């Protein structure tokens, strides 16, 4: 069952690479949160109950509800236009995402460590690289934050893989989530949209030294 959920997770990555509207990104983040909730439920049944309940709450409340709502509110408030503006056409993004998944499969095949669950490793690594690719190929600042959330989902999956043996790693994952939310709050409170009057990454190049 876990394998099925993880395969659906990869399909959400493909959907992200061809999505056009920013709201689709937030919806995918919500779906990923729900998927992670079920994966946590099935995988981590050996750490103590309090930690388990905390993690489950965190996936549902944080990832599936709070962060997408926040992002939607940000989009409305800063009057950010609906489209995600990529540098490369969506067709190429899809091919690159597929290539990333295949490359991680090949990479994980050559690792001979028996402690590592290969399926989790593949999903985690592909999510991280896809998140990095999304940050690198989109023009708006808000998509940087969304890409960061995706990377953070990937790290969470990896921490789940070893969660039974090292619960501290899972706690670290939660702290990563809190850091991300502080980042978003930063944008929200400091109204970066207002100050720059332009949500285009190109303008950030004005910060150069020379």
């Amino acid at each position, binding site marked *: 069952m876990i394998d099925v959920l993880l395969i659906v997770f990869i399909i959400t990555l493909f959907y992200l690479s061809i999505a056009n509207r920013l709201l689709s990104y937030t919806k995918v983040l919500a779906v990923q949160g729900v998927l992670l909730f079920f994966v946590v439920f099935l995988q981590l049944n050996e750490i103590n109950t309090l930690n388990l309940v905390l993690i489950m709450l965190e996936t549902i409340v944080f990832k599936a509800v709070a962060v997408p709502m926040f992002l939607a509110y940000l989009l409305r408030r800063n009057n950010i236009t609906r489209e995600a503006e990529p540098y490369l056409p969506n*067709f*190429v993004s899809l091919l690159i995402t597929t290539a990333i998944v*295949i490359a991680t*499969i*090949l990479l994980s*095949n050559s690792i001979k460590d028996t402690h590592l669950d290969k399926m989790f490793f593949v999903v985690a690594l592909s999510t991280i690289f896809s998140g990095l690719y999304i940050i690198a190929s989109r023009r708006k600042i808000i998509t940087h934050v969304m890409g960061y959330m995706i990377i953070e989902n990937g790290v969470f999956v990896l921490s789940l893989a070893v969660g039974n043996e090292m619960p501290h790693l899972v706690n670290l994952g939660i702290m990563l989530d809190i850091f991300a939310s502080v980042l978003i709050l930063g944008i929200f409170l400091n109204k970066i949209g207002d100050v720059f009057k332009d949500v285009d990454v190109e303008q950030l190049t004005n910060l150069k030294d020379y």
Partner: protein
Amino acid sequence: MSNISAYLLMPLLAVVAIPFMKEKAKAIVTYLELLLVAGLSSAIAISAIVGGAEEYVFGGSAVTGPIRLQIDALSAWFILIINIVFITGGFYGIFYLKAYREQQKQISLHCIAFIVLHLSLVSLCVIQNSLVFLITWELMALSAFIAVIFEGDKMSTLKAGINYLIQSHVSILFLMLGFIWVAVKTGSFDFASITEYSQSNPTSVGLFLFICFFIGFAFKAGFIPFHTWLPHAHPAAPTHISGIMSGVLIKIGIYGIMRMLVLIKTDYTSIGYFILIISAISGLYGVMLAIIQHNVKKLLAYHSIENIGIIGMGIGIGCIGLGNGNQLVAWLGFSGALLHTLNHALFKSLLFYTVGIVYQATHTLNIEHLGGLIKKMPHTTLLFLIAAVAICGIPPLNGFVSEFLIYSSLYQWVQNATLVPLIVIIFSTLALVLIGGLALFCFTKAFGTIFLGEPRKKFVHGIHEAPAIQRIPLYFIALLIVGIGIFPQGFFGVVSHATSVLTGNRVGEFAPIQGSIADTLQYIGLASTGFIVLIVLMFLLRKLVTKNRVTTSSVTWGCGYVSPTPKLQYTASSYVRSYSKLFGHLLLIGQKEKPVSGIFPEHAALKTHPYDRLEKSLIDRPIRGIKSFLGKFVFLNNGKLQFSILYGIIFIISLIMIPLVYGLILDFFEFIKQL
């Protein structure tokens, strides 16, 4: 023994006699000689297939050692292909060259080159001695060059020919490297010593040797990135030579690779992967560039690269099967590759000949200027249609059979493979399917734009169909194409003798594998026949039902547009626009535009020209770099007599002085050492 002497004597006589004859006699003598040599070699080839391998030994000289000629089933297969293509091409060429009747000297040279080309190609398949092989290879390259530059007064033809000659010589360089290496290490020029050498040394040596030979033969065959001469040479050559080049000349490269596979015993699995990956890339690249060409012959040339890619994929999969010990995969892969060699020779030459007829009628090769030719040239259209359907690999014609064999080998290999081979398999399947789809795209464009719709440009002269006698060889090839499609198991039986050479089986061992493949092919043959019968039945049914219905004729529906012109039609470039937009970054399309301006625009123009990105980076840029570097030394070559004498004096002085100075320097070092 005496056959061989007769076989060599006849062409010699013909070559000497041709310049002295009158024009009609020239053609007849050339063709007769061709028929005789082809007949003799085919007879020997057929007896080699049916009986067993035959061998002749010539004395040779002290330099070469004894010269062995060996005809086994593999050589026989290629000899038969060469003869079929040359016979049909020669017949077609006689009528094609009628338009050039005045240029007698060039025609003599062309006929001589034709005869020598045929002779050298057939000989290459049987020679087993490295030195003689290299000499014959050189003969073949030179005669092909002479044949290509028939219209040598045009600058572009000459440039294309010289491009071909230079790349041919780079290939000979690699071949020489391999052959001389083996000869130096073993002391013998015979091919058998290659086998001994590779068996007695570690496999990495054999691998390196094979790659050396592979690069040499890959130049000839047209694998990426050694393909850059192909798209220039094919349009420049006269059509019957283009057909022969595509049909046979590039297959000699494939023959060389296969012969080396038999001779060099090394790690088949890694060689297989190497060939598979290069072939998949060649196939995809070839067809992707073919789609955007305007010049029909260039389009067909890029398609040849694609088909060589498909043949290479078959060879690669066969090698991997040999390496894994999976006989079924090896059989399917090699049979598919060998059968596709024949199929490609057939339908590519047919395509070139029909294009030649179109060129003779309209004097243009630009697709965008043609159109609606089906009404004036129905026979040519039918022949082109048969060849186009065949090249896309569609049943019930022959292209499907060879592609089916290669697909089967992939799906058989999938059964026992581990993870990394599985990923290679799935990408090879992806590549093969995409190649098929892109080929369909390309040939619907070519056929639709040239033959269907309305004419896109008015021609001053009338357009006539070619004379019936010129079309005879074309009908023969079309018949073969349909025949292989309907009766594949017979041809597979012939091919399996050649495959057994490659896989190293004996007659008794391969019967069960051959039997199972033949059964499947029989089903395909029956299904294809049934398909053709079904089409005919449906057609008759339709005729019956609509016999009494009213049929009227009107203009094409134009959505109420009041002044339709042929210019409103879809052009070839517009047809491929959806494709070129998607892959625009990969392809290199130069564009010159004079934009539309103002409310009542006067004149606007758009010109696109397709280039080859690999050619630009591998050939054009380095040549420019070398030219600019060497250009700095141009001052040395200023043509004045005094400077030449000065260079001579400097050379003599250095000849005398350098050993003296060297001795002085050695003494100096001795002196310092003693201190």
